[in-house]
């Protein structure tokens, strides 16, 4: 054909292929036009053909169809296309695993997996020579991503990668090959993936029967051969691979941990699994290793005894000859919370204030309320024998001498303890707050906040207000409480987020009725709400006052009418939400809710490498919850690994109450740092963070060879999976001819006189014959 074209005068220099190209066929409009044309011609011809007989009809039909065919030919715009074609070389990627797990051997004295991989490359030189001859071979070292090597891997290659991401590296290597056709990929690895492949295959293992495909492999354009470097049957290792547990634990409640132990090689039938907090052993259990299944699941439970955040460590012993001893321990931080908040609620006598507060507390499912109401006083005569009464004794001795430490909060509402309690109970109550960090809420009323008596002196020590000697001190009269400057920003009295809206809400609440006339707020106490005009020696009478009392807290509400903010508010067409929010806030503050702390110490993450910078941020608020730069802040080490030295740097102020600390702990282990702050001689409390310094050991969490995972990659892509000592016989790659058209030239065959005449001639002849035969 090329010769014919040259004779016809076409310059074919540089072209080595020809073909007919139908440009019109690419448009559906062309197909529609051709179809309509054919139908129209036949319909127009039909009356004439019907009158003709035999051979005449056939001739007329043929002529018209021929004309139509030529017109259709032209519609499809044929052209003669000459093409320049180049033959391409297929490329091939060889990926060598250089993650840290490749440093391991079957035992701690045998050749490493990397050494076995390099030996495979070196020992099969002819195979690789052959590949390089036929293909464009690129060599990559990979761990979490591939790195192009200048040539074949050499003995100097080190396995230092912190992870093994086989699928991700395959995809990235493919991109590195560019637009070259890929004949295949060869991967040398131990298969111990800890990236996407592991996630998918573990999910498949955990949910038996789930047909999880691996999209990266299903769409991979070439076969992948895999070579397992290492001998699974020779591996000796015991590892804690996983500890599954809830995010939070609850104090005094059993906490369950599901531990997965992986054992490769027979070195022990039973091992001791230990859970520690620091150096203290919390629980230890003998575990029988399941030798048929390489993974043994163990359920371990313990009961946390303290609230806070702690670092727990699971350990199994290290046996001689283990591939790695880094995976014989696993640490995890755990925050231990209160399960329930225990509230002791002592009420002088039943009242609506008590009823609505009880309902408010009962709405909170985490509050465990133990209530004692004085329903009958010594002078009351119920006119019924004891067994017809539902009254129970008020177990004051048991409550105050035994049970008090178990409560998080004690509420006295319109209660005068002198009628029921021994003086020493009040001292126990004071110590419960100041030393043990308990909280007390005192709600006013005619029997509440009575001063000037020795009995109440210990209670007075922890109150935020000074009590006068005159009592009863309840002053009648309605008033709308107004917020002090501290009350406008304090979280207890924040019933709306916007400060202006918050103040508006407080002003709109129904009036309170009655106030206990106290003398003044104590130094260090904070008054959040005041009487608008009734004054005492220290100014306007406090309605809501708070104080930090030693390790605990105390709140006084000097009225028993806050229930007016509930039902009466609804009666005035307002919401009772402020009532609920106020008391929720008050309880949270009393219970030292972490979100209401004045100090907040935070870290970026929970685990650091030895020598890595640990950045801590401290945020300091003053007692009215405004950021302050005036505080004297201090950071100290509360816990550290034995022998570790951790210099504490000076804080770097960052403005708006924020301070930064940067530390560099070197010793491995758990660290607890405590920040505290003082403002105008008063403590703003403290906050703690816990973090662990540990060698990154993701590669050693599960060091088992994974021939089945490598086999999965090969099976899904149409490749073969072999062991390093099995040779290269099965590892062949097809080398198909791949050509690429680099240039074309078209010669149209339809837009010329010849085509026009070819269409016109049969139609003209057909017309002539019809006229001649008298058929039109």
């Amino acid at each position, binding site marked *: 054909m090329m010769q014919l074209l040259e004779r016809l005068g076409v310059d074919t220099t540089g072209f080595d292929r020809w073909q007919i190209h139908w440009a019109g066929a690419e448009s559906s409009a062309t197909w529609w036009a051709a179809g309509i044309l054919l139908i129209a011609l036949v319909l127009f011809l039909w009356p004439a053909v019907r009158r003709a007989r035999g051979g005449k009809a056939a001739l007329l039909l043929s002529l018209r169809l021929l004309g139509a065919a030529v017109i259709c030919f032209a519609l499809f715009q044929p052209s003669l296309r000459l093409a320049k074609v180049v033959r391409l070389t297929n490329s091939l990627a060889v990926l060598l695993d250089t993650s840290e797990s490749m440093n391991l051997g079957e035992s701690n004295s045998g050749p490493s997996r990397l050494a076995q991989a390099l030996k495979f490359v070196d020992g099969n030189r002819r195979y690789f020579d052959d590949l390089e001859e036929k293909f464009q071979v690129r060599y990559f070292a990979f761990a979490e991503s591939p790195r192009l090597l200048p040539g074949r891997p050499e003995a100097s290659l080190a396995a230092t990668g912190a992870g093994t991401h086989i699928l991700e590296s395959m995809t990235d290597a493919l991109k590195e090959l560019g637009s070259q056709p890929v004949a295949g990929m060869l991967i040398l690895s131990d298969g111990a993936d800890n990236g996407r492949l592991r996630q998918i295959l573990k999910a498949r293992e955990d949910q038996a029967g789930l047909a999880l495909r691996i999209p990266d492999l299903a769409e991979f354009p070439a076969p992948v051969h895999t070579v397992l470097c290492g001998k699974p049957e020779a591996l000796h290792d015991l590892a804690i691979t996983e500890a599954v547990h809830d995010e939070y634990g609850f104090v005094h409640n059993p906490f369950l941990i599901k531990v997965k132990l992986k054992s490769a090689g027979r070195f022990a039938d039973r091992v001791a699994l230990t859970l520690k907090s620091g150096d203290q052993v919390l629980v230890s259990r003998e575990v029988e290793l399941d030798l048929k299944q390489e993974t043994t699941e163990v359920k371990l439970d313990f009961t946390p005894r303290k609230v806070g955040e702690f670092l727990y460590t699971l350990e199994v012993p290290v046996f001689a000859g283990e591939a790695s001893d880094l995976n014989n321990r696993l640490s995890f931080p755990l925050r231990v919370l209160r399960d329930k908040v225990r509230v002791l609620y002592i009420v002088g006598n039943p009242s609506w204030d008590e*009823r609505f507060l*009880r309902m408010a507390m009962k709405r909170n499912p985490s509050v465990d309320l133990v209530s004692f109401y004085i329903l009958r006083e010594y002078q009351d005569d119920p006119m019924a024998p004891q067994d017809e009464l539902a009254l129970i004794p008020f177990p004051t001795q048991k409550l105050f001498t035994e049970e008090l430490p178990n409560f998080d909060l004690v509420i006295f509402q319109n209660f005068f303890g*002198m009628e029921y309690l021994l003086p020493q109970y009040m001292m126990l109550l004071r110590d419960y707050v100041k030393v043990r960090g308990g909280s007390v809420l005192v709600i006013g009323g005619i029997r509440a906040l009575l001063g000037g008596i020795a009995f109440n002196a210990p209670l007075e020590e922890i109150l935020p207000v000074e009590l006068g000697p005159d009592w009863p001190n309840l002053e009648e009269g309605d008033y709308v409480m107004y917020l002090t400057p501290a009350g406008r920003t304090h979280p207890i009295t924040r019933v709306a987020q916007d400060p202006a809206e918050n103040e508006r809400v407080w002003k709109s609440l129904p009036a309170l009725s009655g106030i206990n006339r106290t003398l003044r707020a104590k130094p260090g106490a904070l008054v959040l709400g005041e009487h608008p005009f009734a004054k005492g020696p220290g100014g306007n009478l406090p309605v809501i006052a708070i104080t930090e009392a030693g390790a605990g807290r105390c709140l006084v509400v000097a009225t028993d009418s806050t229930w007016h903010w509930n039902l009466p508010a609804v009666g005035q067409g307002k919401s009772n939400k402020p009532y609920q929010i106020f008391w929720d806030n008050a309880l949270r503050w009393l219970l030292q809710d972490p979100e209401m702390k004045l100090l907040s110490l935070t870290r970026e993450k929970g685990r650091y490498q030895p020598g890595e910078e640990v950045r801590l941020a401290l945020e300091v608020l003053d007692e009215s919850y405004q950021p302050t730069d005036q505080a004297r802040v201090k950071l100290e080490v509360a816990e550290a690994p034995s022998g570790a030295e951790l210099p504490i740097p000076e804080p770097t102020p960052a403005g708006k109450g924020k301070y930064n600390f940067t530390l560099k702990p070197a010793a491995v282990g758990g660290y607890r740092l405590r920040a505290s702050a003082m403002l105008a001689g008063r403590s703003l409390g403290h906050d703690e963070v816990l973090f662990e310094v540990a060698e990154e050991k993701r590669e050693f969490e599960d060091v088992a060879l994974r021939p089945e995972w490598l086999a999965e990659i090969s099976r899904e892509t149409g490749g073969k999976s072999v062991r390093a000592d099995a040779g290269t016989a099965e590892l062949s790659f097809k080398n198909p001819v791949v050509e690429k058209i680099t240039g074309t030239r078209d010669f149209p065959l339809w837009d010329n006189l010849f085509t026009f005449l070819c269409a016109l001639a049969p139609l003209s002849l057909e017309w002539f014959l019809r006229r001649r035969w008298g058929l039109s």
Partner: protein
Amino acid sequence: MPPFRLDRRELLKLLLASGLGLPAYARSQVRRPGSMFMIPERPSFFFTQLIYGQGNQWLPHPTAAESFLQILVQRTSVPAGPERKDIALGSDRLFYSPFLYLSGAREFAPWSEPEVDRLRQFLEYGGFLLVDDALGASGSGFDQSFQREFSRLFPGEILAKLPQDHTVFQTYYLIDRVVGRKAGRPYLSGVDREGRTVLIYSPNDLAGAWARDSFGRFMHQVEPGGERQREMAIRLGINIVFYALTVDYKKDLIHVPFIEERRRRRVWP
């Protein structure tokens, strides 16, 4: 500790009250300050009766409330106001009176829609209503009228009988018999909202058993159980007040074993 003092005004009130034969007021004012440390009482519970209908239709037993309050104060620590308060559904002070008492013997005209809405809101946000059929007879005019208003208050709901283990039967006294001046229907009915019974209906004329004349004598015969039945009606009233004030306090775990033990041991009269 300062001594308890009666000022001249209090003394005058006391003398006047005693002389005029208003025992409830006088006794309550005198007795409560007699607490161990002479702390005067400050009433926080008020027996508030709902005004409705024509004339004194809403007040079938005018002296019952004061009589009951006197007994309540003598027997319990509830700091109750000595006198009944009367209130209409439209009053601004309605929501300051979480305990409402509704009684009657005859049929009454339907409440207006705003009144029904207001009472429903009152009950749902923390109020309590004790309804007492003063006739103590099934199908009385009051009973029928209240049933009609109830279906408007809580459409689609019914007044359900309170079970025997309901807190109201163990708030102060242990009660196993529901009576009033009559004992024909030995049960209380009610309706709950969020675990709280917001309305209790007594069909046996409770207040009829409480009412006394100005000489302190009970006004009505109590049938069929006589004075023991009257005592039970008084106890039931006290328990209902305690329920309104303390809700499920007596269902707290610490009380349960005591109460169960007493119920087990008790020989009911």
